[in-house]
């Protein structure tokens, strides 16, 4: 069932809120859409990367001479081809990056810090020659002890990844280095005093495993550098301005000399917000003086592109018997991979965000380990901390014999609530999602044998940021809309709809494209659920500029003051005292006379989009357990979320369903599995199991609309929140079915069976 709550407000619009055919749909079903690996340039070479087989090793020497002399090899690059960078943090998506680390992640310098860490790259005339060349590169490694687990990495005496790493955020600063990059703390009130008032306290430790974004399209790019230093990159990315910035910085080139074009993107989910291949391809191309194409294998994607953190989380919540939470406390340890920068900060900020708490404290640790550097993954950090908190809240409800939705309603954040991470919420739709869940038929449908039902809520901030959009009125009255945030989930359709709504023209009059870095001003990336929000806001502004200009041109033609012309239903007409003095003109009419009335007409919005508003969700999951094998199957799922306003409801639903699907995989099956040798054992879809169609129910959705007053169409970002609740919703359903509280992800059959056996022996199992 697909439902929309509060459908009425949208009906004031002609396009917004409809399920129009998306402009990129046909290209995608015909195979015409061009993705990262689909471009071939004349004379292009194949680039391949030599990767460290060791999780931790000092690189004493690299000898590339034999590889460089192999016929067909046109260029080889190593650490020597990249200048070292000073330590400097800059934002990337919701996460921060440091160029000192980025340069080391794209190409190992002093040490290889994870299995798969790039050591060298070659460009050759064929794949087989490139692979042969990699085998000829001699690397002298001094193998060092490694550390994989986050808790192990925090122990005194653990192998140090960075000998100079002093924990930030601790006063006074520690005197000795450790693997703890940073400590963060959020909260308010007095948790000790809060717990003193509690009539029930539940305290639990949780662990989660690193999981990969699992985009089906591997990282891919083609780079070409001309003899005069003009560089072009075609790449699958969530942010080509970010690619440009990183590449220019790492290579020491002028930003303006690098033009980056975003290919159609085959999924990203946060994982395509950083650079891996692009600087290498550019460096190789410059050396070889030929275009270089680089495509990761699936194995490379798993071993060397960012999964999200594995974590250890400790949560303690106290409540009164009536269900009012009096204190909440959490400690988060997130592994960052080889370099600082796990999403522990957003994780800490999210942990208790859905609740109105007087006393709350969250402490987080960012910990480096010998694994690939984590990248953003859909609501980075949030799913981990909220899994833990939502599980404990469920346990409190069960212990108090309270309905878990009622308990959440009793503590829910509302407009004016001061969030645990600081600010006061504006209008938010959390209560509305809870009420919609309570009213949903799913919540009341009886369960079958061996089934349990769980509910969980989720929160994500959403962001705005720098955005440029251009909207050209063509000479025949059609429009060309150019945005700079890669379309990863229906953006182009949504932007067209907002533009058509503003201009009062038909949707098929507007063609939309994602422009390259030479065509628009800076655009921050598609991430933080910002694209429809920010590029939508800029599109509206650009459309209003076109309208203003159209009025101006009519005024000039009619020899009226500008404010004597009004724009309505796709055209201009004299207004007020002058009404009826001239026949109305359509936008096409105006376009036809643009040349004579002052030149081409275009709107160009360059904004820093403010006013992004959070999106809350409440999910209901029914899970069936096979008591003999421990296999859990999600048999019914309903995702309810506040979209602010759904511009294109099908794509909003698609985001809800996609997030849930990833969450179900995270909850039940997906994990990075390391051997004692520090090597990843399941770097492929064969053993890294993402759900197939038969693993999932037909996921139901309910769109709640509590408009964001700071967006012209009320938009909230919707893409990330849907992955937050599933892990807890499923764990809570498992607890309902089995009587066992699962705290260790994934809840795979062997773990479930072992826990069931233990509970059966103790007499606490419900099956």
């Amino acid at each position, binding site marked *: 069932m697909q439902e929309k709550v509060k459908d009425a407000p949208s009906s004031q619009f002609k396009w917004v809120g409809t399920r129009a055919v998306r402009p990129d749909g046909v290209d995608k079903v015909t195979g015409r859409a061009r993705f990262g*690996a689909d471009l071939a340039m004349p004379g292009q070479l194949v680039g391949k990367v030599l990767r460290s087989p060791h999780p931790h090793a000092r690189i004493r020497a690299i000898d590339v001479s034999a590889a460089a002399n192999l016929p067909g090899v046109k260029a080889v690059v190593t650490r020597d081809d990249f200048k070292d960078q000073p330590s400097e943090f800059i934002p990337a998506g919701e996460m921060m990056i440091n160029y000192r680390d980025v340069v080391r992640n794209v190409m190992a310098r002093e040490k290889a810090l994870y299995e798969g860490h790039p050591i060298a790259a070659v460009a050759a005339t064929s794949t087989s020659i490139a692979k042969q060349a990699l085998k000829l590169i001699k690397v002298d490694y001094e193998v060092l002890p490694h550390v994989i687990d986050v808790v192990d990495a925090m122990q005194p005496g653990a192998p140090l990844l960075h000998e100079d790493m002093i924990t930030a955020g601790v006063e006074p600063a520690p005197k000795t280095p450790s693997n703890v990059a940073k400590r963060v703390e959020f909260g308010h009130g007095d948790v000790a005093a809060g717990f003193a008032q509690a009539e029930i306290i539940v305290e639990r430790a949780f662990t989660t495993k690193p999981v990969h974004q699992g985009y089906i399209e591997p990282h891919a790019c083609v780079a070409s550098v001309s003899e005069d230093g003009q560089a072009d990159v075609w790449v699958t990315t969530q942010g080509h301005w970010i690619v440009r910035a990183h590449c220019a910085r790492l290579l020491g080139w002028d930003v303006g000399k690098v033009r980056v074009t975003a290919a159609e993107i085959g999924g990203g989910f946060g994982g395509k917000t950083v650079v891996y291949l692009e600087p290498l391809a550019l460096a190789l191309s410059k050396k070889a003086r030929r275009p270089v194409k680089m495509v990761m294998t699936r194995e490379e994607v798993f071993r060397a592109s960012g999964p999200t953190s594995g974590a250890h989380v400790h949560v303690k919540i106290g409540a009164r018997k009536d269900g009012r939470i009096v204190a909440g406390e959490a400690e988060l340890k997130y592994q960052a991979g080889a370099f600082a920068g796990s999403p522990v900060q957003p994780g800490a900020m999210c942990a208790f965000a859905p609740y109105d708490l007087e006393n709350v404290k969250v402490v987080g640790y960012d910990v480096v380990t010998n694994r690939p550097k984590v990248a953003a993954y859909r609501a980075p950090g949030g799913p981990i901390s909220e899994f833990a908190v939502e599980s404990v809240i469920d346990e409190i409800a069960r212990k108090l014999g309270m309905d878990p939705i009622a308990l959440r309603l009793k503590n829910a954040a509302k407009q004016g609530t001061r969030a645990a991470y600081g600010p006061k919420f504006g209008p938010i739709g959390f209560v509305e999602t809870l009420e919609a869940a309570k009213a949903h038929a799913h919540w009341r449908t009886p369960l079958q044998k061996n089934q349990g039902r769980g509910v969980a809520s989720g929160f994500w901030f959403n962001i705005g940021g720098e955005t440029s959009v251009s909207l050209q009125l063509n000479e025949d009255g059609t429009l060309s809309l150019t945005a700079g945030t890669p379309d990863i989930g229906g953006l182009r359709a949504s932007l067209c709809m907002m533009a058509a709504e503003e201009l009062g023209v038909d949707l098929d009059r507007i063609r939309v494209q994602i422009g390259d870095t030479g065509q628009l001003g800076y655009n921050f990336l598609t991430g933080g659920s910002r694209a429809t929000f920010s590029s939508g806001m800029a599109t509206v502004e650009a459309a209003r500029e076109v309208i203003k200009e159209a009025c101006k041109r009519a005024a000039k033609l009619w020899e009226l003051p500008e404010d004597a012309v009004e724009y309505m239903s796709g055209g201009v007409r004299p207004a007020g005292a002058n009404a009826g003095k001239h026949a109305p003109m359509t936008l096409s009419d105006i376009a036809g006379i643009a040349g004579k009335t002052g030149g081409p007409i275009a709107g160009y919005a360059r904004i820093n989009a403010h006013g992004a508003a959070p999106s809350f969700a409440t999910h209901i999951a029914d899970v069936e357990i096979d008591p003999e094998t421990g296999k859990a199957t999600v048999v019914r799922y309903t995702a309810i979320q506040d979209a602010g306003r759904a511009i294109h409801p099908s794509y909003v639903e698609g985001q809800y369903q996609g997030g849930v*699907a990833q969450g179900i995989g995270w909850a039940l099956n997906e994990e990075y599995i390391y051997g004692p040798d520090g090597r990843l054992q399941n770097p492929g879809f064969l053993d890294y199991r993402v759900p197939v169609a038969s693993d999932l129910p037909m996921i139901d959705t309910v769109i709640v609309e509590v408009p964001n007053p700071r967006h012209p169409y009320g938009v909230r970002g919707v893409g990330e929140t849907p992955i937050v609740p599933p892990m807890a919703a499923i764990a809570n359903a498992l607890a309902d079915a089995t009587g066992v509280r699962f705290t260790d992800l994934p809840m795979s059959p062997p773990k479930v069976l072992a826990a069931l056996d233990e509970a059966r022996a103790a007499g606490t199992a419900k099956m």
Partner: protein
Amino acid sequence: MSALRFVLNGEGREERAPPSTTVLDWLRLSARLTGTKEGCAEGDCGACTIVIRRPGENQFSAVNSCLLLLPQLDGCEVMTVEGLSGPDGPLHPVQQALVDTDGTQCGFCTPGFAMAMFAFRDGGEPAEAALIHEALAGNLCRCTGYRAIVDACRKLPAAPAQPAAAGGAGSVSADGPSLGAHACGGQAFHAPATLAELMELRAAHPDAVLLAGGTDLGLRVSKQQEAFARVISTQAVSELATVRAGADALHIGGGATYTQALPLIDAKFPAFGALIRRIGSRQIRNLGTLAGNLATASPIGDTLPCLMALDAEVLLRARGGARVLKVEDFITGYRKTALAPDEIIAEIRLPYLPAGRDFAAYKVSKRFDQDISTVVAAFVLRREGEMVGELKAAFGGMAARPARAAALERALAGKPWTPAAHAGIDALLAEDFSPLSDHRGGATYRLRAAAGLVRRFQLETTLTGAPLRVEAL
């Protein structure tokens, strides 16, 4: 040595390329048809799905082009996403359905889904959830949660009686396959049409690589970029493609794919058929063969416990003669078999079960579809009244090779077939097997699951009305 001949999207092609070229690479790099995508190059994601119609077949089958070697297309009609809609025609119904249901998000997996849906529609199956899931099990989508894609499958109009496929001008049947051998770039590929030719080639080139379906071999080309000097394919040998119900056994030719063998296996050994439906995906089963599964002799080869429990025999042929081995004797160790360098697997014989036997097969894996087994079990039970006359219990995933559980079988013989008699089976299985712990399952879990499957078999054979079929484990 002739060129390869096939029809691609309605146009006849004659191609020469090194035989160790995957169809996916050829499509993307040589033919510049980039609609077909590479997501994993190991047959797991389905983004590379195309459909082929082999000579003599009347419907298209979905296959993973990343695992298929170019010469395997010889004589086939091939369609990629680019061929679905005519040059100026409207979208093909599968494309239209995906557009109408918003079945695309990022769109990278879409061409593969479109081709899997095309094969599904071409097969004329009803649009029921279970069949749709089976048809889509070989395709991963990470964006949609599949709902919109499943909806698109449900909305597909029926295919016309005559498949509106490539057909027409470039039909292969006029020219036929190139037959025989294909060589390019120092690599040779032989696709003999008769058993006699195959035996000659095998004798002449004992070091050549034998290719049946190529789902394992294709992986070595696709992932490791191995180039084989000489490949002998059994695919075109008509004698090997037959699947026949004989008087006392099912005869499955060494070249028969899972898909070709399924209808008769379903009819004679429904539990085995249900297990085969969980091997890989349709794309894999349209290429892979039972004989190939046997020859690979993996400890988790899905079909091997069934073959053992059913007392299957394997007919091995060499130029000089033939011999018959029990499957149990054919598999000699970890990925080792008794196959001599000049031999081929000509046939697998599955003797029918005498009346009154209970047979069941179970697969435990993390996912129902498209997954590697953690444990596979097959049981055949002869009862004497309430007692066990004889139990054959074969397991995969419990040792270096699939094997019968001798201690378990001995101990249960002559005992009542009741839950009470099963008290000691955990210890008996621990006597029979010392399974490995790996990321697919720990030793304890494997032993526990194996014992659970014995118990499940007991329950299913004693509870009236209980299904004797593989279920979602």
